């Protein structure tokens, strides 16, 4: 199952970065969401995989590592807050400038594309 999770983490990262390389705000934010899925999973699996070992004391003999779980739990909530902040910035940017491109100026975007 380790292989399944490792491939999932890899794919989520790749999709996240690909979307973040788009030139509009909305896909970039989605990309960031994908990336945070990947990062949360990565931190979670750093406690190693365990089945039927929920860290509720007294229910089993061995337990999964609770520390990465605690870290990821707060990370999930915080990443919601951060996504929301970026989202309102994206809306603000769109409403005040009339477009939702992320690059500072059009030329920069073209040069950045390396064409």
């Amino acid at each position, binding site marked *: *199952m*380790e292989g399944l*999770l*490792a*491939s*999932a983490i*890899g794919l*989520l*990262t*790749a*999709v996240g*970065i*690909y979307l*973040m390389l*788009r*030139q*509009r*705000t909305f*896909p970039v934010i989605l990309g960031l*969401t*994908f990336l945070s*899925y*990947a990062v949360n999973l*990565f931190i979670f699996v*750093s*406690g*190693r*995989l*365990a*089945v039927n070992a929920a860290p509720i*004391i*007294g229910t089993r003999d061995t*337990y*999964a*590592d*609770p*520390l990465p*779980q605690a870290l990821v*739990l*707060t990370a*999930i*909530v915080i990443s*919601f*807050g951060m*996504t*929301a*902040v970026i*989202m*309102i910035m994206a*809306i*603000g940017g769109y409403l*005040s400038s009339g477009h*939702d491109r992320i*690059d*500072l100026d059009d030329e*920069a*975007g073209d040069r*950045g*594309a*390396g064409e």
Partner: protein
Amino acid sequence: MSLALIAVLPFLGAFLPGLFLRAGRNACALATGSVTTLALLLLASQAPAILRGEVVRTRIDWLPSLGLNANFFLDGLGLLFAGLILGIGLLIILYARFYLEKSDPMGQFYSYLLLFQGAMLGIVLSDNILLLLVFWELTSLSSFLLIGYWKHLPEGRQGARMALAVTGGGGLALIAGMLILGNIAGSYDLTAILQERDLIQASEWYLPALILILLGAFTKSAQFPFHFWLPHAMAAPTPVSAYLHSATMVKAGLFLMARLWPVLAGTPEWFWIVSTTGLVTMVMAAMIAFFKDDLKALLAYSTVSQLGLITMLLGFGTKAAATVAVFHIINHATFKAALFMTAGIVDHAAHTRDLRRLGGLRRMMPITFGIALLASLSIAGIPPLNGFLSKEMMLQEAADTSWITPWAMGLLATLGALFSVAYSFRFLAHGFLGPSREDRPHPPRDPGPGLWAAPGFLAVLVVVIGLFPMAVAAWLVDAAASAVTGEPVRVKIAFWHGLATPALWMSLAAIGGGLACLGAYPRLRTLWDAAPRPEARHIFDGIVEPLAALARAVTDGLHNGSFGRALVWAVLAIAGAALWAFSGGPHVPGTRAVLPPGPVVTGVWAILMIAALATPFLHRSRITALVLTGVVGLLIAPLFMLFSAPDLALTQVSVEVVTILLMLLALHFLPKDTPAESPPPRRLRDAAVAGIAGLGIGALAWAMMTRVPAFDPISAFHLAQSKPGAGGTNAVNTIIVDFRGYDTFGEIIVLGIAALVIFALTDSLLRTTAVTRRLAAQPRQPESGDRHPMMLVVSTRLLLPMAMLVGVYIYLRGHNLPGGGFVAGLVFAIAYLMQYMASGYDWSQARQRFDHHVLIGWGVLVAALAGVGPWLFGLPFLTSGYTYINLWPLEEFELASAAIFDLGVFLCVLGAVLLTLASLSRLALRTGERASTRAYDTEGGR
């Protein structure tokens, strides 16, 4: 403690000016002045002990393992400098109150001034060289702010930048030099270093350390060839020039040389480098000063020249010369600060500082003239003023010193003194004497006492020290010079040393020659203007501009405003670094046993992979992309569940719901499709970069999971202590609310701040007309027939109390079973959000009893109270306790103080989520969406 307090007071006081500005400019100046006065009184309370020859110390261990301690000590030298910094500072605060215009931001000025004052005090009181270096850099930074105070003047900004580049660059050299010095001596404490003279001078690292330290001192004290920044720094307001560029900051370099004099001086290297630099600076700058037309430029070069004089004296390396240097430091601070303030007064009254346009001010401004007369005669070295005394002593020392030939030093020092006489007399003659200029619209007049009191006081000191040197100044000179040389000093200052002393004849020659120069000024000026001279500023620009261009080229190459380019570089750099690290060592496959894939996990994984893989291909339809994102996010929850993390699964599900709702709302304001703008090559490049990142992270995750941890995880402790220590069986929850409660406390504050930021951003957006106009013009979405479907309305209202019951249940059981404040807060939030969706924003808002902001505030407050509570019992922050209670007819239940903390978490999460979504809804109301507050809005879509 009081020494540290003296250094810290100005930093603390820097907050006051801004606060007191509302009470008026006088209150603002008074508040600033009282901070300085308090520090001065504290210093004075230490003075008697210092003058008895004692050394006062304060030791505060900070990072002893790094040798970084907040140690302070005060001896005679420190007393002299701290006294100058605070005493002159007080006069400057008074002067600046009347100097600054109404339109100048006074609070800022005084804040910067106090910051600077604190940094200077830190330098002169530090016992630890690392601490000293920190304060040293702080003076560079605060002087940057002060020089560029008039931000609208380009000269101000350029001067500030140049001063920062030169003194900051010297500061870097100084750091290196001081670290070498500390390593030789084996301690970073100055008092310890000062004992190691033989060790340091015998070290092969002595010369590099000396050169680096002197680079720092020379740049700060504007010694040739680094002198050029000081005249450009004259773009600062005059109080700044008087304070930083005559009395204090530029003397920091001198202070450092004096401080380290016992261990560095006395070698041929020291003598040749320091005295030569000082001599060249003194003569050259005095000569340039003579030809400057701007009063402040003249004074700036005069300052450079006088600093050169003191440097030269320190360079001689003899006890007598060091004593004279100390005496001249005092004298220079008195007359030069007075002259700068006079220049400021003239500038204010005559609206020019150009000597070619001034003249005849003597009759119109008698008080100012009197002050200027005393101070400039003192620079020129005319008896019986204090400048005469120290200049005579300096000439005597120079005459006694052999440099290249026995007489060269004496001759050049006389030449320097000659030019000093010349420029002082020119300052007087062209500024105040001569015919009055009648072409001025408003004849200049003396200002009120507020402006002339400070320089007047200094002028009185000039006379008093000159007349009674032994009574007024000798004790301070003794104390400071003893500290510099490390031996007791008893100075003898006198007017008359007899006809046989060379100093008398050198002095007479200087005065005679200076007068002759003034007489021949027009002809000399023609010669000067015709002579070619290098312009320091052009050389500086010539060095700095290519560097800046290079930096710009590198920066622009990496990120030029294109987010994509910056990200690509970052990803490639990280991947490259990881590859480099990976290829550096041998690798064996992991040995940890791999779990066999089960059918459920494989199924979840397959759907997740398909959804994730489809997203980049379908992302241009944003709704589709959002749905796919939601699918991926929701599928992560069962993964958590299957791998023994029920808490995470609960959190992931509820956060996912909220996140998707948020994005759906946001999409309301954004275009619904992403145009296809990237050409295929760019897409291919992006895919390649993303693929590299994904492969790398995936491989890393695989490698990690198939290996046993290199170190034992610390969570064995948490598992063992969860029940006995924190009183809960859910180890994840006890970690969050107890073991790592401090982290969680920070996190809920961050979450609260994020929500408040969103609220504030929305608020400012709604105030922008361009935004509201665009909002109103948003194309209306085709609506479904029923805006608030009756079924949805009724069912959500029925569900509300039940959802809340679930939330309360999840909260209560959290300590022992999966759940807790985070999840409960999210469940509550979703329950409310359903009302918003079903019945409309206005209907729900009208029934909302609690303000979301208040919820966040209460959340943080409750969590803080749970943290502070244990203090009452003498326990550390966030210590938790629990007990079991029997309350008939209930079963025995547990009461844990951590539950109070978790309540805070719950409130904060609830408030933050609701505030975020409510902010977005406020934007939606501006799009012309119809609002309804009636109980059942059945007419909605018709």
